[in-house]
């Protein structure tokens, strides 16, 4: 029993990382229907920023993470204003092609500037190893990951439900044309949302360095998982991303613990089953 709780918590923590990486894509996809497959490139930006700030500039871990958020958000805004804006009217397929091109460019660029070497970051000592709570081992870093993600989730929901800006975003997700008709500046709201989403992905990338390692192919490897979370959770939904990421993380881990021969099989099976049951995603609207 004890080992099960430990394993489930580990799965939940992994799911929280996926949440941070995916929530931005879910909201921007739901808001503007813009298929940004380069979303994980923002995560890579954040990851490499964290590594650079810590290893080359000697910044402490938390400062580097904050910097990762800011840098990734900045890159997202620049990309949105210069290139993405022209493609809002383009077809889904064209958006896919374009953003895949961006991913390829980012992969090559990072390989060029940082080489293909696996990156690591020296996180503070108190975040390494495990702590014992009620006789169960909990990895310190995973507790940290969960804490950060929960804090972000709470912040986001507060932003969405309690602020003027949040109301704008909700309106735009529900019915963009109507929102514009009411005089809401959807484009500006989208730019800010895009920046937030990119920044969160960057934060996720920075956190991922210690967790799963960072290489130039990160943007492609994690794209599949992020798409799964977004589809299962439902477009435009923070809660959806949260629940979907948690479910996928836990079921992946539980599956591997109880049925290791199923391996990666279970996560795809769960996804297919959930999508067939709820095609619009768990909390999706369309």
């Amino acid at each position: 029993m004890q080992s099960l709780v430990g394993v489930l918590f580990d799965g939940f923590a992994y799911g929280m990382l996926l949440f941070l990486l995916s929530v931005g894509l879910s909201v921007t996809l739901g808001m503007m229907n813009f298929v940004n497959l380069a979303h994980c490139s923002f995560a890579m930006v954040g990851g490499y920023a964290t590594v650079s700030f810590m290893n080359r500039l000697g910044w402490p871990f938390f400062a580097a993470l904050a910097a990762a958020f800011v840098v990734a958000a900045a890159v997202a805004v620049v990309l949105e204003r210069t290139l993405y804006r022209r493609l809002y009217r383009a077809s889904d397929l064209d958006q896919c092609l374009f953003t895949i091109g961006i991913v390829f460019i980012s992969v090559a660029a990072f390989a060029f500037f940082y080489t293909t070497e696996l990156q690591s970051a020296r996180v503070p000592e108190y975040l390494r190893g495990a702590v014992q709570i009620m006789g169960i081992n909990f990895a310190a870093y995973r507790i940290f990951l969960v804490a950060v993600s929960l804090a972000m989730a709470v912040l986001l929901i507060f932003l969405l439900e309690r602020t003027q800006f949040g109301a704008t975003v909700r309106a735009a997700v529900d019915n963009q044309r109507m929102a514009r008709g009411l005089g809401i500046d959807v484009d500006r709201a989208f730019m800010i949302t895009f920046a937030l989403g990119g920044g969160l992905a960057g934060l996720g990338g920075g956190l991922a360095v210690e967790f799963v390692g960072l290489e130039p192919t990160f943007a492609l490897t994690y794209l599949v998982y992020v798409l799964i979370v977004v589809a299962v959770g439902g477009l435009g939904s923070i809660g959806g991303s949260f629940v979907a990421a948690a479910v996928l993380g836990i079921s992946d881990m539980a599956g591997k613990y109880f049925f290791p021969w199923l391996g990666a099989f279970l996560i795809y099976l769960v996804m297919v089953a959930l999508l067939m049951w709820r095609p619009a995603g768990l909390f999706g609207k369309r």
Partner: protein
Amino acid sequence: MANASSTAARYFEGQVRWRPLEIVFWLAALLPFVVTPAYLSLASQVAITALFALSLDLLVGYAGLVSLGHAAFFGLGAYSAGLLAKHFWNEPLSGLIVAAALAGIVGYLLSHIIVRFRHLTLIMLTLGIGLLLHEVANSATWLTGGADGLQGVKVTSVLGFRFDLYGRTAYSYSLATLFVCFLVARRIVHSPFGLALRGIRENALRMPALGAPNQAHLRKAYALSAAMAGVAGALLTHTTSTVSLEVLSFGRSADVLVILILGGAGRLYGGILGAIIYMVARDQFSGINPQYWYFWIGLLLVAVVMFLPNGILGGLSALYKKSE
């Protein structure tokens, strides 16, 4: 009344007739034998990818179903051809038929689940099924050879022609198969069935009012597309005498979708053109710079979307219309 139907008839006849540009294109496909004989292996793989992209076009461009897991059928075809050659007999042409049949049947069965969905759900379902099949193949090492690939596949010749080091036989074989399948695809697309598919793609709600059974049509399209992808996979096995898990990978599914969008979906030639451009570009870029060629390919994709929306063929036809 007579006027309307004769206009319609003339329109369709115009569609079905072979344009001079098409004839030039297929004749030009024979050029590599003479002009670039050292590139025939590459040409063979381009032809195979073109066939794969053509099969996806039937699904994406004509039926309007986007799939991110089409490599499942490519891989099914490749493995069935490999297993047939390894355990029973290594005559390729019968291998093609077996591969097409197997992939087609599996495609038909899966279609019952898949064609009920659209948009992101459809894409993720096809992705998931593709990934599942990849995992199954990885686990079934006793059958597939696992990550090392299927060993002992030796397809030495087709119709008495040996598969040589220069790739002459390989290209002839792949090109001929591509052409035959292209004729089949052309026939399908210009048939009443094909028109119904396009109708479903444009306005799925209205088609039943015209008497077209949506789901049945889509299932058939899916099965045909799967069968053709299976043929492409079998071709790869025959021309290289190798099969590995990579034929079922997400990478292959994503690549072929990128190629189709690049060339322009819904135009029959889009997949073929996309395959030629993408694979030749990739070959040239990676030859010049093996480590960072992703950059140039990415730039190519970005440039195409910016200047030629709806793929290369789409962009070219728009330019053509503008100049008229």
